[in-house]
């Protein structure tokens, strides 16, 4: 067994909290540059230019890109030949979140109980998804999720007879309902198939994909291309103030499903599609 120290996990998670909230990944930066060139609405352009300035200020002055530094979502890919020593994995990740949000001057946005709503004051707990895979590595991906866009996400339990046209209509309706609330230009993550919870998780994972990459399934790639065009024809535009760039990308992940079902989940992310990864 390969041993990984819990303290190294804490450190990695802490660093990722700060990195992801201040710096976009290269693919996202490129997508934002492209959006500026493509947008033809004057107000839309004005919004995108402010967002470019914002990214620059965030990086130079270490001010979070967005004040909603999110609820920390962590994807863990644990090699089955790894053993964690000096603490347990879950505690280490939660501690990394606490330290990252405190030391990084990030906003504490988590309440302990959905009804009582008392702030936990350290942004813990995060939401952690585990996968156990062959191998000796531990890969951690941290994706802080803001709730302006999270609140506009939807799940549709479609019928098999609804087919691909039904899925298109559902996805487009979610994007239109989101409109200006979700801080467009958005990145749209879609999960199709599996069960109720599996397709929701796929839609979140879809947001982690590099924005210049398509699905490697031909019919899904075609669907992504068609839907991105349809979304950008809605006219919602940057900030929802009208324009031709409503989404930077749409990523669709699929999974086998039941003979009776066609679940479709749409997880919407704003232009601050944040994530950071580390392999330990």
């Amino acid at each position, binding site marked *: 067994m390969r041993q990984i120290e819990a303290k190294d996990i804490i450190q990695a998670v802490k660093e990722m909290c700060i990195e992801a909230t201040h710096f976009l990944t290269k693919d996202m930066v490129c997508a934002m540059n492209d959006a500026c060139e493509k947008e033809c*609405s004057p*107000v*839309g352009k*004005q*919004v995108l230019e*402010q*967002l470019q*300035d*914002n*990214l620059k*200020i*965030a990086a130079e*002055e*270490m*001010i*979070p*890109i*967005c*004040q*909603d*530094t999110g609820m920390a979502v962590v994807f863990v890919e644990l090699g089955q030949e790894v053993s964690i020593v000096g603490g347990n994995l879950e505690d280490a990740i939660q501690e990394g979140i606490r330290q990252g949000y405190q030391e990084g*001057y*990030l*906003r*504490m*946005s988590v309440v302990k109980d959905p009804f009582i*709503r008392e*702030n936990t*004051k350290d942004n813990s707990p995060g939401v952690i998804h585990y996968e156990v895979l062959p191998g000796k590595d531990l890969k951690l991906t941290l994706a802080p999720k803001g709730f*302006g866009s999270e*609140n506009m996400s939807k799940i549709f339990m479609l019928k098999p007879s609804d087919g691909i046209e039904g899925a298109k209509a559902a996805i487009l309706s979610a994007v239109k309902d989101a*409109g*200006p*609330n979700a*801080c467009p230009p958005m990145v749209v993550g879609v999960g199709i198939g599996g069960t109720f919870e599996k397709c929701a998780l796929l839609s979140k994972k879809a947001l982690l994909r590099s924005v210049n990459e398509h699905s490697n399934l031909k019919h899904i790639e075609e669907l992504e291309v068609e839907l991105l065009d*349809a979304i950008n*024809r*809605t*006219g*919602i*535009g940057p*900030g*929802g*103030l*009208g*324009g*031709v760039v409503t989404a930077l990308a749409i990523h669709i992940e699929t999974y086998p499903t039941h003979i009776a079902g066609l679940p479709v989940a749409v997880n919407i992310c*704003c*232009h*601050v599609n944040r994530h950071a990864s580390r392999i330990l």
Partner: protein
Amino acid sequence: MIYHLQIPVSDKELAKLEAGDTIYLSGVIYSARDAAHKRMYENLEKNLPLPISVDQIFLYYMGPSPARENKVIGSAGPTTSSRMDKYTPALLDLGVKGMIGKGKRSLDVKEAMKRNNAVYMAAVGGAGALLSKAIISSEVVAYEDLGAEAIRKLEVKDFPVIVVIDCKGNDLYEQAIAEYNKE
């Protein structure tokens, strides 16, 4: 049109503003979001006073990230306004003149805006670092226990916003999207 406005803004000046205008705001605005709105609303229901006078003020739906040393405030962009819709008509009836946020508003809010000659403006969502530069002072004035959700008195200089819903109820989100819709 582009305007530079000093708060408080007279009714006459507010009436001139149209959906789509760009405004650079200067003066005092107050930040309040979900939890602060809920508490103010509960006070009104119980006939208790509000912690601040809302007459003639501009509200900013915002909860900042913590300020680093030598900074006035952390990242400070708008949050989604519709979550405040339930509480907003009562505050408009008490004299709130401007609201800054992002996203759609309810019909009830629009009606209350027309009735009270108030304006709804959007700041660019996700531009919190940039917008923080237009805030020159920040002081918690109520509900300190709410942390990021406390009510803050903010002095702003040339704070950039776009009029989304004007006093007549015109809605830029509806107009602008129709203009670029190619479905």
